[in-house]
């Protein structure tokens, strides 16, 4: 026994580590975890997403202390938070701004992966966990949006739940089951509260854990798309890798500082962000007899919303919306290119990536506009651009003229 105890330092730290591998875990995950040395600005958004998640959990817990669920109390309790709870306005604005910030960093995080081929083997599972996080996040954001029971909350619930009515045969019954009433009602907001506050956050935490475990197994990709594990030095460590701590912990802390500065500016000066982060129609109570005009979802859903509206058939529209979201899941298998990073891909991939980028942003803009005339035509063109990126990928990723990928990371990437 004495020999075994020798490996532990004396005192509380040793006592703890003998019973739980705290030091071992920190060493393996931080000091001896080698990440590629060429991370650029796009590599901030993973850690930022984690920061926002923690922030949302924290502010969310405080909001539940003052929020009163129910169709007759929810709206008033939110006004109570805003006007009478000390710093209630701050807690709520942190939470609403956090929701939009979450999608900003997650969209940038996903776009990074598309640019640098981070979803490609051996990181397919990592990508899939990330996509499940994205799905859970959408459900979380939607249900959270319903809770203040403003008029936009009500109509968002009405429209989104009715999407399920387009499912053949079971649709109408399913919609009633989701709502728990013949229309969006008290029962709906009550169950959304339970899901938003308990169920989905638990799922999110589990998925984030799995995402990180999978990341640690395969290691990070990098802007060059070169596997650093293919070049080990004499000491068995990747020659192009640097320890996560202190190098990337310091980098991430800097990123968090910049992020929080921008975040605070929004929270304190433009919490509604020009009707984008919080919508005017939601500052009046839910009214089943008055649809807000114009009706638009939160900005992070508008690309899909624009696709839905671009189709003059409800079932097909809902189906295309679903495909538009799920298409991301199949990227690892749609992409047949021998190289990962856009830096070594040819004109074809770059062209389609540009089409995708422009289409996505155009759809995002159009989803905020009324569904009339030229806007619908534009949405149809952009939807074609969006889907062509995915559907034609097996062709253009293979036909593309890629450049030879070097063995080592370039020192100045």
């Amino acid at each position, binding site marked *: 026994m004495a020999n075994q105890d020798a490996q532990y330092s004396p005192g509380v730290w040793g006592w703890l580590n003998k019973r739980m591998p705290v030091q071992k875990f920190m060493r393996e995950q931080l000091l001896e975890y080698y990440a590629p040395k060429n991370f650029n600005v796009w590599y901030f958004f993973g850690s930022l997403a984690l920061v926002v998640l923690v922030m949302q959990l924290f502010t969310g817990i405080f909001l539940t202390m003052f929020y009163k669920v129910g169709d007759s109390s929810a709206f008033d309790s939110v006004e109570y938070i805003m006007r009478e709870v000390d710093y209630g306005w701050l807690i709520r604005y942190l939470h609403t701004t956090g929701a939009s910030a979450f999608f900003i960093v997650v969209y940038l995080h996903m776009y990074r992966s598309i640019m640098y081929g981070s979803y490609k083997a051996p990181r397919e599972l990592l990508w899939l966990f990330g996509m499940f996080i994205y799905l859970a996040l959408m459900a979380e954001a939607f249900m959270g949006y319903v809770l203040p029971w403003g008029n936009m909350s009500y109509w968002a619930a009405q429209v989104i739940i009715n999407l399920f009515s387009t499912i053949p045969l079971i649709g109408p019954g399913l919609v009633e089951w989701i709502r728990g009433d013949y229309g969006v009602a008290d029962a709906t907001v009550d169950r959304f509260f339970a899901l938003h506050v308990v169920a989905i956050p638990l799922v999110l935490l589990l998925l984030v854990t799995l995402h990180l475990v999978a990341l640690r197994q395969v290691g990070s990709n990098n802007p060059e798309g070169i596997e650093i594990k293919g070049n080990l030095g004499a000491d068995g460590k990747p020659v192009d890798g640097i320890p996560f701590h202190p190098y990337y912990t310091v980098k991430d802390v800097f990123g968090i500082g910049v992020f929080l500065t921008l975040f605070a500016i929004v929270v304190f000066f433009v919490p509604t962000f020009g009707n984008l982060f919080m919508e005017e129609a939601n500052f009046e109570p839910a009214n089943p*007899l008055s649809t807000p005009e114009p*009706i638009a979802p939160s900005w992070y859903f508008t690309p899909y919303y624009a696709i839905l509206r671009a189709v003059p058939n409800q079932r097909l529209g809902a189906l295309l919306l679903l495909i538009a979201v799920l298409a991301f899941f199949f990227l690892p298998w749609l992409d047949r290119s021998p190289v990962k990073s856009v830096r070594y891909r040819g004109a074809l991939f770059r062209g389609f990536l540009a089409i995708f980028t422009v289409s996505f942003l155009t759809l995002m803009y159009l989803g905020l506009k009324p569904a009339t005339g030229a806007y619908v035509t534009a949405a149809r063109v952009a939807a074609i651009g969006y889907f062509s990126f995915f559907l034609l990928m097996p062709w253009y990723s293979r036909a593309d003229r890629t450049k030879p990928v070097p063995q080592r990371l370039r020192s100045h990437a």
Partner: protein
Amino acid sequence: MTDAVVTGEQSEVDQGRRKFLTVATAATAAAGAVFAISPFIASWEPSERARALGAPVTVDLSKLDVGQMVTYVWRRQPIYIFKRSPQMVASLPTHDARLKDPQSKDSEQPSYALNERRSRRIDIAVLIATCTHLGCLPKQHFDVGDAVLGTDWPGGFLCPCHGSRFDMAGRVFNGSPASTNLRIPPYSFVNENTLLIGQDESGAKEAA
């Protein structure tokens, strides 16, 4: 049990029996899980209270003028009730070619409302006001040649959410994201001036 099992020789283990028991246990557990989850799934159905609140609604028509519309709520769904002039009714068949479902074959309505004007009485129209696309409230645009909808607009409804258009009988126009006409609830007339929504000769209907 065979002697081989008692002596613990691995090669003598009845693998078929072991596999059968494993699969049978897993299958029983799975069936049990399905039964165990069903009350939780059922709890999401509309409660007894929600169902009780879905009782029929009475509407007084005595003050309803031609071209006027009132909105009532039945089962949390807004119901549009409006009186059409003889000219409005007469114009209905003239734009059949511009409709997705002019005969209402693919749309939901009680049998007594399955006619050209989609109503029991010629003048009174009763429609569930939730757009058959995604459930917004179509807005009233009764004026012929409405400024928003163009000179050939025969009067009807426009959904502010996704631009679905319906005529004065709730029939959907071509080019709308909605695919079917506005639904019609079960209803009946108690007398000349009293309308009962949610109940007809077949009794109070289950959820529309």
